């Protein structure tokens, strides 16, 4: 069976199951009420796209910095990175956003909630990225560094020509997963009143009392973002593919 056909079948079965489930609850659909707010959905979705893209780029940057710090020879630098990673990974994002925005951002005079939101989300996702990157770097055999040094490469050249090309291939799948999570985690930015996709859907729901009609488009909207991301990751993975020697 061709792979595309298998996908079509599984998706069809899934949709059928969802339809059956919905038909059982005898829900009175009222799409018209929600349709009136389509602009609000679109605006919210675009804000989520923008927030996600910004956080995506920044979290990779933050993660790379933290990964380098985790490997530092200086005890203080390494400890700082370790404490950062553990605190972020060990506490709910909800709490980080509330404290980060209402306490920290306020204290330092950062009033733009969109910038604060992107920073907080990047710090959150960066902690996970840091561990992924560290794992990728440490998976490169010691002999590769020996070889790079033996032919006279500078440390920077060794990183660029030898270590990174191999590490990128290793970290692509987990990084893609983390980026998909990041897109969905951006929905929590609604708690600091950023009018992104989720907050707008919640508002439409409170205006129209059409709960499912508000939230089903929400799910579809996130899929529209995450599915291409996964596809891109698979394509990149394919491009970087080679067998380990």
């Amino acid at each position, binding site marked *: 069976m061709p792979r595309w056909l298998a996908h079509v079948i599984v998706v069809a079965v899934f949709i059928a199951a969802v339809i059956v489930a919905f038909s059982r609850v005898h829900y009175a659909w009222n799409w018209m009420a929600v349709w009136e707010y389509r602009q609000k959905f679109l605006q919210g979705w675009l804000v989520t796209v923008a927030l996600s893209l910004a956080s995506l780029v920044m979290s990779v940057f933050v993660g790379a910095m933290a990964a380098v710090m985790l490997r530092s020879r200086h005890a203080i630098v390494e400890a700082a990175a370790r404490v950062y990673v553990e605190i972020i990974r060990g506490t709910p994002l909800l709490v980080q956003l509330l404290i980060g925005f209402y306490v920290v951002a306020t204290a330092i005079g950062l009033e733009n909630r969109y910038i604060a939101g992107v920073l907080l989300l990047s710090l959150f996702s960066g902690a996970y990225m840091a561990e992924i990157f560290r794992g990728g770097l440490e998976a490169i055999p010691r002999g590769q560094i020996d070889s790079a040094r033996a*032919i006279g490469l500078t440390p920077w050249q060794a990183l660029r020509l030898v270590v990174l090309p191999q590490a990128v291939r290793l970290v692509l799948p987990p990084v893609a997963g983390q980026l998909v999570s990041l897109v969905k985690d951006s929905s929590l930015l609604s708690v600091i009143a950023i009018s992104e996709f989720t907050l707008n859907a919640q508002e439409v729901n409170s205006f129209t009392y059409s709960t499912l009609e508000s939230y089903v488009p929400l799910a579809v909207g996130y899929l529209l973002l995450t599915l291409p991301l996964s596809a891109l990751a698979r394509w990149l993975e394919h491009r970087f593919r080679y067998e380990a020697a």
Partner: protein
Amino acid sequence: MNLFISDLVQRFPVRAEAGKPAGTATILDHLSLVTGDISALVLIGPSGGGKSTLLRILAGLDSPVSGRAAFDGVPLPRDEAGLRIYRRTVGTVFQAYNLFPHLTAMENLLLPLVHVHGLSEQDARERVRLPLERFRLAEHAHKRPAELSGGQKQRIAILRALVVQPRRLFLDEPTSALDPEMRAEVLEMIAEVRAEGGQFILVTHEMAFARRVADEVAFIADGRVLAAGPATTFFDAPTDPAVCRFLSLTLST
């Protein structure tokens, strides 16, 4: 090359293990060695005796704790920047090949030429063309290391070290990870390098080959040189009892 080594000491930190506290292990224990003006020096001895550690220092990959080493009267640099420049003038081949798995054999050869020695891509390709043909590797140039046999990998690794036209090669047990057939093709390549006047220092357990290519041999155990001298006298008339024992053991297997 005239090699002069005096009082070389190398220690490594050892992690705490069951029953033993953390500490340092002395791998080279005031090792000294002076050779004549030779082309090929072979280091032999039991595993863990310090051969590879010594080779890594001579290849400029590690710095000793103390002591001196000099080739033709020129001491090895002590700082990393100086060592990096030194490493560009020599070639090193490892037991595990250490080719770059994400690059093809050709790209492995080009990388040091282009990025370290400043050749254009075109000049670099021209430089490797004949050597590839000569060692019957041209047909494998487009393959990644995973697609090559162990012997082919090691020959590409030797070629990668050779094409930069180094003053000498350092070969660390280049055949230990190979089965006998592949071992022969790699040894043959080293013998050809020798025949063309190439200089090298070789760590090996291949006694017959050592005897064939070596000008001088040094027997290293417990971080010291127990015996050293011209290959013929070393193998035919060994005097040191430890060397005799080692030779009789390795020759009987």
